[in-house]
């Protein structure tokens, strides 16, 4: 089959590799019908996530048709159309039983690596480094899905693939970000980053009762999209704009009740801080560039809540923890507990409350994917979301 392989920092290639086979009793093999490139794939592309090996198949947002099931998978059969969550969960351990699906104990074969870095291992992810399990991802024609009996969401309506594909990661991730932000009716919510997760967080914040959403980014097309969802926008790169002042101005000096960092470890700023973090990460003195995290801690109101769906990987420098303590804020974060959100959010799509296809800017083939990783990284061609048809021969 064809698959997109990570071949080193800033290098991905579409290669012919072996087809996946059933390896465990709860596995299924999926013929992938649609897959997408995630913003977090750029952290892999840019070499920020350790424990990648040359030859790793990328991709954790995908859906398809069940081709074959292992002998313990009784709730799926060949031909079922399913969306697969990017986290792999066993459904039986303490954490899965508590609905903390992304903290699953039993799916990471390399748990010892994550224990060394984080103290404990969370669930495995598809196509996201060997520390996170080393499972082959879904930017490919076929994929092996472990614990398919637990994760797979059956699509029994005739909704097109593109409307449900983002249930595999970014819609639940944006939704959990809004839930973690502890939004009360009438709250003002500030959201850093208007990429796919940020856009879903904006939509979800309104679903959860926000009176006002303030969205922060620098790309005009992303800010346009945020305004079309009803958010006020702040372009932080405009001359004389200070995000902290803007958020005070827009909230009567009080600050937003809730802050959402939908950017994560590769934040960008046009100031000294950006140079500082670039130098420190280059020298391995820190691993992440936490500019948004610093700003969000400063900006959120006293006693407010900071929700962090943006990915952080390692050690952060100059995080104003005194401000976090001094204002008595709450912080909530982590990989999305996918299995908890997929079904309710599918119902919202079925009821027509949201049509996730608004996000898609590019529809491509697997062969075009390596070039699109660069365009996605450089934010060219007004890219907002890239969807791949792994069976298409040329651009649709």
């Amino acid at each position, binding site marked *: 089959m064809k698959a997109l392989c990570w071949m080193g920092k800033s290098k991905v290639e579409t290669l012919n590799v072996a087809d996946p086979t059933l390896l465990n*009793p709860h596995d299924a093999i999926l013929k992938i019908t649609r897959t997408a490139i995630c913003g977090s794939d750029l952290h892999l592309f840019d070499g920020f996530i350790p424990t990648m090996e040359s030859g790793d198949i990328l991709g954790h947002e995908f859906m398809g048709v069940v081709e074959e099931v292992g002998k313990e998978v009784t709730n799926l059969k060949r031909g079922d159309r399913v969306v697969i969550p990017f986290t792999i969960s066993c459904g039986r351990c303490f954490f899965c039983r508590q609905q903390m699906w992304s903290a699953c104990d039993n799916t990471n074969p390399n748990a010892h690596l994550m224990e060394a870095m984080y103290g404990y291992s969370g669930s495995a992810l598809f196509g996201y480094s060997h520390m996170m399990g*080393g499972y082959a991802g879904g930017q490919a024609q076929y994929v092996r899905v472990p614990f398919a009996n637990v994760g797979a969401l059956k699509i029994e309506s005739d909704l097109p693939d593109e409307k449900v594909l983002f249930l595999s990661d970014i819609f639940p991730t944006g939704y959990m970000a809004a839930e973690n932000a502890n939004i009360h009716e009438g709250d003002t919510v500030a959201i850093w980053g208007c990429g796919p997760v940020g856009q879903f967080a904006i939509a979800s914040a309104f679903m959860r009762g926000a009176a006002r959403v303030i969205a922060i980014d620098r790309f005009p097309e992303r800010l346009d999209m945020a305004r079309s969802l009803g958010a006020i926008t702040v372009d932080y790169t405009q001359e004389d704009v200070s995000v902290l002042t803007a958020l005070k101005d827009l909230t009567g000096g009080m600050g937003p009740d809730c802050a959402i960092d939908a950017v994560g470890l590769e934040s960008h700023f046009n100031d000294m801080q950006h140079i500082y973090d670039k130098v420190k990460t280059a020298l391995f003195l820190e691993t992440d560039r936490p500019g948004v995290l610093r700003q969000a801690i400063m900006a959120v109101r006293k006693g407010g809540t900071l929700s962090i769906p943006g990915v952080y990987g390692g050690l952060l420098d100059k995080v104003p923890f005194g401000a976090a303590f001094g204002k008595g804020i709450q912080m909530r974060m982590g990989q999305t507990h996918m299995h908890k959100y997929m079904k309710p959010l599918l119902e919202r799509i079925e009821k027509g409350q949201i049509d996730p296809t608004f996000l898609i800017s590019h529809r491509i083939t697997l062969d075009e994917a390596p070039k699109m990783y660069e365009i996605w990284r450089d934010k060219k061609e007004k890219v907002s979301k890239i969807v791949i048809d792994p069976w298409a021969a040329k651009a649709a």
Partner: protein
Amino acid sequence: MADALKETPHREDLPRMGSAGILRDGRYMAPPADKDGKTWVRTTAQIQASPLDCYELWRNYAAVPLWQEQIKEVRLKGKNSHWVMQTRNGKTIEWDEELMQDEPGKRMAWRTVDGDSYNAGEVIFEQAPGDRGTIVTVLQEFGQGRLKTLADSLLNRNPKQAVIENVRHFKAFMETGEIPRTEGQPHGPRGVSGTIKAEAYGEHIDTPPGLERKAS
């Protein structure tokens, strides 16, 4: 707390054994240090099953190759058990074990009596606080010093890590009926760096088969 963990080491006549000894009189006790030509490992897992169910799987010798790394066969040999291990470098090593303590649903203790391995160990099964399943604790001692352990780490498998991973496999097997694995999945060319990394991450050690084991 179960009485088992309050036992003082060496209270029973087990000259090469310590008790798992995490607690004594309400105090946490550190694991034994590696010295005098001995290597120790203590590891623990909380499992969503009853102590008796955990004990029964652990006690089932025929099933050991399903969840322990590199173990090909365990068979009864008189009062003892005979163990066959296939190491990474293709060597077969074998030994006999004597089961010294056997308390159903609570505890087992063993030591080797003959063969290529020199180790002794104890496993304790106790109800987790707050009715959250079973805490399984293993304390194992290998009769080898740091040099041999280093050589094992480079050429085959660090015995401490093997025990830690086996307890992890046991938990996954107990809770889900399978052991998570990635061997056999497709990938592109690994190249030199990928191969070195896979080795460094321990991916060259075969994952035990879990339920999918083919009859041999």
